[in-house]
């Protein structure tokens, strides 16, 4: 009896490790930027190339930076959630960052699917994306009044993430 106890215990430990390890999402890499000041940038806006956007303009507000692109398939999945939030009178400003896109494609996309953004900044060559550690669009950053990143969502925002994480945290930071 005792002979089988040790291998059985080892087997259970191994199964435990695999159960935890295989159920984790390898794409969800923790961002080192959470808790750090949002990297500064200044790029033209999508709708009006004559105007620029910089995170400095948002100091004093709790806001969401949402990285999107017209070529990005999962952006279509999360977009209705953002549109609905703004349409229902959501107060948290959402700034879009149009990542490695064509201006005309981006504008078309917003026209077709709705524009939940206060404005969208245009990151044509993806340099801003690199500073923010973007590796899979869509990605979203919740930034507090002092300009510090408090939360990062890699991949599409689901209703659970929006209502369970982003909005409660935004409310808390807004006080």
């Amino acid at each position: 009896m005792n002979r089988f106890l040790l291998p059985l215990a080892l087997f259970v430990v191994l199964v435990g490790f695999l159960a935890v390890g295989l159920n984790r999402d390898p794409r969800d890499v923790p961002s080192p930027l959470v808790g750090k000041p949002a990297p500064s940038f200044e790029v033209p806006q999508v709708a009006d190339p004559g105007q620029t956007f910089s995170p400095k303009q948002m100091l004093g507000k709790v806001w969401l930076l949402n990285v999107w692109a017209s070529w990005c398939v999962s952006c279509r999945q999360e977009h209705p959630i953002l549109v609905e939030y703004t349409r229902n009178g959501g107060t948290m400003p959402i700034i879009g960052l149009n990542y490695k896109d064509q201006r005309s494609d981006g504008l078309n996309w917003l026209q077709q699917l709705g524009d939940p953004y206060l404005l969208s900044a245009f990151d044509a060559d993806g340099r801003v994306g690199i500073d923010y550690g973007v590796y899979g669009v869509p990605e979203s950053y919740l930034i507090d009044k002092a300009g510090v990143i408090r939360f990062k969502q890699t991949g599409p925002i689901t209703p659970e993430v929006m209502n369970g994480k982003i909005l409660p945290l935004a409310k808390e930071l807004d006080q």
Partner: protein
Amino acid sequence: MKFLIALGAALLLAGTALAKEAAPLAEDEAVEKRLINIAEELRCLVCQNESLAGSRADLAEDLRREVRNLIKQGKTDQEVKDFLVSRYGDFVLYRPPVKPTTWLLWAGPFLLLIGGIAALIAFLRRRSAQVAPAAKLSDEDRKRAEALLKDNS
């Protein structure tokens, strides 16, 4: 015959006129060598089991461009790696740094090895204790055995 020679010469001339010198693969070979050296140690985040040097993902190309720029600015290899780690985290490094959160990662295999050796030693000791050495024959037994052997022959 003369016609053929002329034709051959004409073809040869045409050939040299058409062929251009091969374009260099990289503007600056030294920069490119360092880029590859650094990028082989870095993980591409889009296709996670490829290195930044080998990946053809869009992001990998952008990151190679950034690394190339950093090298041209005279940054050291460490500074280039720090640039990427500050944005993407330790995950981009194929050789993770030794720090409290990675102690288990680094020491784990050695702990397993030590555990295995300990288990092996314990097993061997137990076995040698079980297989007791055969008792020596007493003189009386030996005589009996010899007597029996003689009887047989």
